[in-house]
């Protein structure tokens, strides 16, 4: 049984107008039917660009945002139906590391208080855990009396990680944990995350937009676009043999720190900008920017893209892709 099993998760945000009398004028379909699973000890990465719904998905899985519909099963137990009490108990098992090290720690609390809070909330005795946790994340236990502003960004992120693992969870959602850090610090924190994963047997749901980081840390990758998963595969498979046109464009757009290689690459350029999740295109959401749609398909084939949303299934390429005409193209 998978540790985390998400099925048809949906999150819609109503868009309202008016101050006194509010009425709904539309819906932002931030997450529109997402399914995936995470096993014990593995790392699944959710990648995509802004507005794809990856952060919303992560928060809905933890019920930090209430899902509109769909199922989230943690160790077989249905989270969406859990009572407030049960949910609080379950929070010990599922934690989150936030993106912004400057905003995710209460500026008026010393680190010691930040780290004992998880224990207090659940009625446990912290004992010497604070010193232990600080050592585990590579910080000096003597500094537990300091306030967040006395630490650098990378160190604050370590405190955030310490907080997330304080109660020994089984699953940690990492929401862009290194995006806000300097390049020379990112590697330190990534190594730390991997160390901790090995030591504690954690599963990670890793949200990121930086594909290089994802290639390094993830076991499996799910690519999201406008609220849906368009391709899912084991990491090396995805990068070496992507079959969805969006994945191909995404990977080809990421520059590599190697001038010789860069000279030989031409990025697949997508047309226009990401459409609004208020009004996604019919059928396949990606068709308005899809180079295949624009250049390779016949009018009949195009009609299919307009009418029929493609299902996320294996189309002979070895892993699921949501494209009627998926084919493998190497872009690295």
């Amino acid at each position, binding site marked *: 049984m998978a540790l985390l099993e998400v099925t048809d998760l949906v999150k819609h945000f109503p868009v309202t107008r008016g101050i006194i009398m509010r009425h709904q004028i539309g819906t932002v379909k931030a997450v529109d039917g997402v399914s995936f699973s995470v096993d014990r000890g593995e790392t699944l990465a959710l990648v995509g*660009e802004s507005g794809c719904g990856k952060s919303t998905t992560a928060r809905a899985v933890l019920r930090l945002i209430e899902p509109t519909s769909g199922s989230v099963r943690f160790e077989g137990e249905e989270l969406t139906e859990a009572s407030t009490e049960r949910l609080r108990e379950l929070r010990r098992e599922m934690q989150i590391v936030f993106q912004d090290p400057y905003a995710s720690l209460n500026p008026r609390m010393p680190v010691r208080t930040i780290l004992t809070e998880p224990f207090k909330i659940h009625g446990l005795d912290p004992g010497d855990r604070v010193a232990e946790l600080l050592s585990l994340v590579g910080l000096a236990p003597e500094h537990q009396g300091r306030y967040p502003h006395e630490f650098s960004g990378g160190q604050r992120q370590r405190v955030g990680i310490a907080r997330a693992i304080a109660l020994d969870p089984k699953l940690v959602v990492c929401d862009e944990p290194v995006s806000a850090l300097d390049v020379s610090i990112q590697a330190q924190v990534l*190594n730390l995350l991997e160390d901790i994963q090995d030591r504690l047997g954690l599963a990670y749901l890793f949200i990121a937009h930086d594909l*290089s980081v994802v290639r390094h840390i993830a076991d499996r990758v799910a690519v999201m676009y406008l609220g849906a998963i368009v391709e899912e595969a084991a990491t090396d498979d995805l990068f070496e043999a992507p079959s969805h046109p969006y994945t191909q464009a995404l990977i080809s757009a990421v520059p590599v720190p190697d*001038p010789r290689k860069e000279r030989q690459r031409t990025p697949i350029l997508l047309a226009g900008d990401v459409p609004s999740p208020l009004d996604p295109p019919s059928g396949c959401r990606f068709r308005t920017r899809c180079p295949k749609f624009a250049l390779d398909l016949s009018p009949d084939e195009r009609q299919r893209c307009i009418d029929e949303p493609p299902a996320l299934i294996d189309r002979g390429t070895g892993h699921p892709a949501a494209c009627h005409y998926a084919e493998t193209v190497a872009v690295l």
Partner: protein
Amino acid sequence: MTPAGPEPLVSVEDLRVEFHTDAGVVKAVDGVSWSISPGETLGIVGESGSGKSVSAMALMGLIQQPPGKVTGKILFRGRDLLVASEDELRSLRGRDVSMIFQDPLTALNPVYKVGHQVAEVIQAHEKIGRIPARKRAVDLLVEVGIPNARIRADEYPHQFSGGMRQRAMIAMALALDPALLLADEPTTALDVTVQAQIMSLLSKLQEERGTAIVLITHDLGVVAGHADRVLVMYAGKVAEAAGADALFHAPRHPYTLGLLTSLARLDRRRTERLRPIPGQPPSLIRVPPGCPFHPRCPFATDICSKEMPPLTGGAAHIAACHHQDRVAEARAAAIEV
């Protein structure tokens, strides 16, 4: 470092920018020299606190003095910008040198229509009427790839997406065909597919107009793909400067080497662990003595904490390190960069 080739367009000599704050003196830029030739792209790479953005702002005369203090020389076509009058600088900005920023809303005024703002830039420097200026503005918007440009010129910045705003800002910056464009983290806030579009646009425009571009960024990938030469800054000083190929494939400074080997790679299968640079970038108020990188440097010896290493190496590739030989050894022994 002077490149072989035509007379440099801009030559920065021993630029220093200091700020007096209530926490002490911040040496944001501490003796930096570089130059750029017409039509070439110079990438300036560094992390936060390296001084890369501040040096660009000094070039444009955007540093408030006080609390800042700018010394040194910035020669644009032989003229020292640091002694130029405000009027001279104003006539230079937009026409000979322009700048684009990470956040397009820095350049775009939210209460004016986009087309109007582009036209305004043109009219600030050329005596032409409203209608012809407007026509040129629309042409520019077309050139930077904004669809339905005539209609969109009458829209406001908030009606544009992030990528479109960036394009509009580029249109404003290139309206008068400046010889030099300073691009300060132009794509950092953009999604990667939009980043590819914008960088491709910049390359195209550069080819058509022969604009020199100073590309300031922390993203080594972007630099690898678009810069002819690269300058690496650390703690307000130049650590290394070289042609792009030389820098990436044969770095001479431990910081550059450290950065390159610590990066997670998109094009490689997963290695066991990343090899990070230990420690963190220094606070600019308390820069370590001698070489600022020495606390984090695996090759550091006694001399590194006492003496700031001079920039050595010749015209094409310089680095400020006492132990460049050890760096070369490590490179040879390590996994291919």
